[in-house]
């Protein structure tokens, strides 16, 4: 801004500056319009989540609800036993976030700081694993889980996602630890600290911000997962929120308000989580791309 004011000789290009002045409002309007288009489905959902079925069929999806109708929320809440699904989702995602981050840290410590022989192969292997379609693993995993007595158990899903998420986490953390200041490690070694102590007393405090970003990511990714929980969690009481919502599709009970109310309360936890960690997250997306 300051630069522009200085560089523009006021007399010479008033026309150009004036045009920029109006054009910018058009461009802002365009950007806002794109934003509104993206928000529209979500706004329509909120509008219709609290509208009675008769109000909906009379006044359509764009009107404000005549009076607040909570039966949709109630019907969905009771039908899927929402608190139970919420707990399943929180439990699975939470444990995966912690275990996945821990496993990533241990792997990355050996690769990035220990500089294990063949580390390039290990990292490549892990990176390839993040690209595999889950369909190429699912049937054997399904069979193995049943043989291990973990059929329909949240622990089967937890173990699988801990490994899948840590494959990405290892890749990311190994490159972060690869640039870890060597002076710190040497100083700790001179003080007689063992490898285990160095990991927790020197490395861990310094990479904690990266670890917290990883944890948030693992939590959200696991929360949003669909395919593996769909196959592995076969009964109602073990399902996660997305599976419970999807399995009600085509159900007679799912009229417009119930569908919208269901979608709304199903996305609220993700939304709240996003708003809480928004700043950490946008930083994290960057960390995941190019260093």
């Amino acid at each position, binding site marked *: 801004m300051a630069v522009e004011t200085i*560089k523009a000789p006021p007399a010479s290009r008033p026309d150009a500056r004036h045009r920029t002045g109006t054009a*910018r409002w058009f461009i*802002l309007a365009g*950007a806002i319009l794109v*934003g509104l288009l993206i928000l529209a*489905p*979500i706004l*329509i959902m909120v509008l219709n989540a609290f509208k009675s079925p008769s109000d*909906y069929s009379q006044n359509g*999806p764009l009107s404000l609800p005549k009076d607040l109708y909570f039966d949709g929320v109630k019907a969905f809440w009771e039908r899927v036993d929402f608190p139970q699904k919420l707990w399943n989702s929180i439990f699975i995602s939470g444990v995966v976030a912690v275990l996945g981050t821990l496993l990533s840290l*241990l*792997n990355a410590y*050996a*690769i990035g*700081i*220990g500089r*294990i*022989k063949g580390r*390039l192969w*290990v*990292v*490549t*292997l892990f990176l*390839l*694993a993040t690209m595999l*379609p889950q*369909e*190429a*693993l*699912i*049937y*054997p995993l399904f069979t193995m889980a049943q043989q291990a007595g973990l059929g329909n158990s949240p622990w089967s899903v937890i173990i699988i996602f*801990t*490994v*899948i998420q*840590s494959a990405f986490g*290892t*890749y990311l953390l190994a*490159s972060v630890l*690869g*640039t870890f200041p060597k002076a710190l490690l*040497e100083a700790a070694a*001179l003080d007689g600290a063992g*490898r285990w102590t160095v990991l927790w007393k020197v490395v861990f405090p310094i990479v904690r911000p990266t670890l917290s970003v990883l944890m948030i990511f693992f939590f959200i990714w696991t929360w*949003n997962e*669909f*395919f593996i929980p769909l196959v592995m969690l076969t009964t109602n009481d073990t399902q996660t*929120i997305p599976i419970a*919502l*999807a399995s009600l*599709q085509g159900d007679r009970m799912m009229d*417009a308000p119930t569908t919208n109310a269901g*979608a709304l309360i*199903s996305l609220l936890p*993700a*939304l709240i989580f996003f708003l809480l960690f*928004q700043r950490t997250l946008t930083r994290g997306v960057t960390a995941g*791309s*190019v*260093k």
Partner: protein
Amino acid sequence: MTTQTLGKDAATQAPPSVRTKRKAPHWVPYLPYLIPGLVAFVVVIGIPLVTNIMYSFQKWKGGMAPHTWVGLDNYRALLQDEQFWTSFRNSISMIVAMVVIPTLIGLVLASVLFDYLGKRFGSRSASVLRATYYLPQILPVAVAGVLWNWILNAQTGAVNEILRSLGVENPPNWLGDPSTAMPSVMLVLVWVQIGYPVVIFMSALQRVDPELYEAAELDGAGWGRRFRAITLPQIKPETFVVVLTCTVAALKVFGPIYVLTRGGPEGSTLVPSYYSYLNFFDKSKVGYGAAIATVLTLVIVLVAVVILAVQARSERKEAGGL
């Protein structure tokens, strides 16, 4: 870039002379830290992947049914299977909807937010808009799918209710008609994906030296010129990352298809992952499903290798050009 850091000669990284040099190499004591990760990796990914490939050479109805070794029969059948080819053709539509369109729009949106609006209305407005664009990315994909399934529903959906109130007699059955189902699914996927490139590209632009833009502005280059001459070349690395990750995701896509159309109507939105799921758990043709999954795996690895090779070549070319 990561690989380069990691690939440095291990010998140069030897710890100070505190440890004796003749004993095992310095990295051996670190092995125990990798063991839990490697074991878990082998059990959860290695063994299942190999087992799945074994399944693909068998005829098996699942459960207690007998396994019969049939060699390459499943793969031969795939070549004759019209649905199999349809599913991979549909993957191209998925790539258009999840890679091509979002990357192109994302480039423009990110540049407009960063280089135009951010400078004229402050970075606060740019970050609010960015958060709005990113919102669909954080919704569970199943929830987004259920929402859109209702919006596009032929009888009670929001779109058709609006169209009817505007006097349209027979609004299309968006997800139920073979001619409109794929475009509708693609629209939903664009909506889901668009925020990802915007966020990545905007953070990439923060990395670019602002003096480049200032110098260009002083020289009288408009937004379009700056976009082509500075933005595009500067954020090439991130563009590759976005293209790679989104292409892999497009080839793997399952959730939106399951929730929106289940591959229908008439296979018009069938994708490889859903087709293999169908064979595994619906038709109980485990061997056949495994063969589809194996082919999909190979295609993904191949595509990823090609993209990485193109990236490496373009990086080399740039290094040579300097």
